């Protein structure tokens, strides 16, 4: 049957693309469906940061694996994904933040992340040229964290999937998950196509709850709008991604491959829903926050702003599991970390499907879990 695959993946962002790649590598016939173009949901709207500084052992180890995979990716996929280990620097302007970073560093080192360390304000300015260290106590610095270019990564996976005999359907929005006898059979699209498969994966990112509902499975994922902007390219300064958790802080980094600064902040209060609107408030507020940290960027010009969704779970950790519906899997709720988690999560998804069994790959990412704890470095 022309429209039958071993695995259908709903969602062509990094989670779907990476999962599809590792499944195709394992010899399975894969079809990826996306309601828009590849990366149109969240992946293509993220700012491309990749870090291992988390606070749970599971996330730290998963991210260490992802960093290793990003490092090999350009060669493996045969396309330059612009991986660069420029590092991440989390800034502490008060004692309480410093204490919590020191605790996190201990947990991270315990988990095997050897190069993360506390650096004082003076050293912060050495690794981040131009950083205003007025009032800064220091920061949590991990030089092996890095950056990559999201569209190149997703497209690189997609091209490999096609080379391995898989298929990619864009502008194909799933309207129905076909089930018979407690087992998933395939999907139908808004456009009227029917695709059948032995396995279906919900990797729909911000739409994971809606897609789950089509299969009768509740996936507790709530989208939340985050805005971002990018500047023209200027000479690369060699600074790491700067993360300022203060209420008037934000995150930004410079891409090594083209010198553009890209940044965002988490709005307070949050903006729930599927909106991809941009606001003038962000366009003026984000530059204020960037210039507060690095005043020398004043003349650099902003060329574009946009927004995208974080797909949040109640506890800030992803959902990566089988579901009560036989052969229907979920890999979603990456809480703003999907791009960086993608390669390692993709491998876990492939392993979960090819190796069978009943347990979730990581207990802390189970679909049915106590969602009351919190990932602190969100």
């Amino acid at each position, binding site marked *: 049957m022309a429209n039958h695959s071993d695995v259908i993946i709903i969602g062509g962002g990094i989670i779907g693309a990476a999962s599809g790649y590792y499944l195709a590598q394992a010899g399975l016939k894969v079809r990826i469906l996306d309601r828009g*173009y*590849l*990366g149109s949901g969240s992946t*293509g709207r993220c700012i491309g940061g990749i870090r291992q500084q988390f606070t749970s052992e599971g996330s730290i180890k998963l991210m260490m694996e992802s960093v290793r995979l990003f490092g090999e990716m350009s060669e493996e996929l045969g396309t330059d994904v612009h991986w660069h280990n420029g590092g991440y620097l989390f800034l502490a302007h008060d004692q309480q933040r410093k204490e919590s970073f020191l605790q996190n560093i201990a947990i991270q080192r315990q988990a095997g992340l050897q190069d993360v360390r506390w650096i004082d304000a003076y050293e912060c300015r050495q690794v981040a040229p131009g950083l205003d260290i007025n009032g800064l106590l220091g920061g949590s610095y991990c030089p092996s964290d890095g950056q990559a270019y999201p*569209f190149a990564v997703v*497209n690189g996976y*997609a*091209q490999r999937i*096609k080379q391995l005999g898989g298929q*990619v359907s*864009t*502008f194909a929005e799933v309207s129905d998950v076909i089930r018979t006898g407690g087992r998933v059979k395939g999907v139908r699209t808004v456009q009227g196509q029917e695709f059948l498969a032995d396995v279906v994966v919900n990797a729909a990112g911000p739409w994971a709850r809606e897609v789950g509902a089509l299969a009768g499975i509740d996936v507790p994922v709530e989208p939340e709008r985050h805005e971002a902007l990018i*500047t*023209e390219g200027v000479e690369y300064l060699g600074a790491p991604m700067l993360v300022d958790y203060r209420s008037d802080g934000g995150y930004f980094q410079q891409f090594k491959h083209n010198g553009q600064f890209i940044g965002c902040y988490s709005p307070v209060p949050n903006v729930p829903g599927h909106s991809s609107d*941009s606001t003038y408030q962000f*366009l*003026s507020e*984000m*530059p*204020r926050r*960037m*210039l507060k940290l690095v005043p020398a*960027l*004043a*003349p*650099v*010009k*902003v*060329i*574009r*702003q*946009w927004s995208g969704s974080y797909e949040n779970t109640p506890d800030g950790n992803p959902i990566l599991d089988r579901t009560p519906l036989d052969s229907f899997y979920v890999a979603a709720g990456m809480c703003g970390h999907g791009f960086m988690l993608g390669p390692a999560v993709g491998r876990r998804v492939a392993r979960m499907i090819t190796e069978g069994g009943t347990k979730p790959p990581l207990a802390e990412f189970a679909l049915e879990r106590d969602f009351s704890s919190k990932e602190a470095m969100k």
Partner: protein
Amino acid sequence: MSKSDEKIICRCEDVTEAEVLIAIEQGATTADEVKRLTRAGMGHCQGRTCRRLVNQLLAKKLGQKPEAQRPVTQRSPLQPISLKTLADS
């Protein structure tokens, strides 16, 4: 080098016709996808020059009628503005 390698479609990001054609071969069916795969339209002028050229190539390669092409997402600001000017606004 073929002619297609020399013909610049997006002069802000130095994207050639050959690169746009590769993106179309790889599955791009809209100017938005070409933009994301090649960076044509992601530079200073935000696609004001290359958008029509990209749409022409899409029309030629995929037989699309111009009126059936999906419009490209337009993003602000309309022209580059310095961080300082925005911060002071």
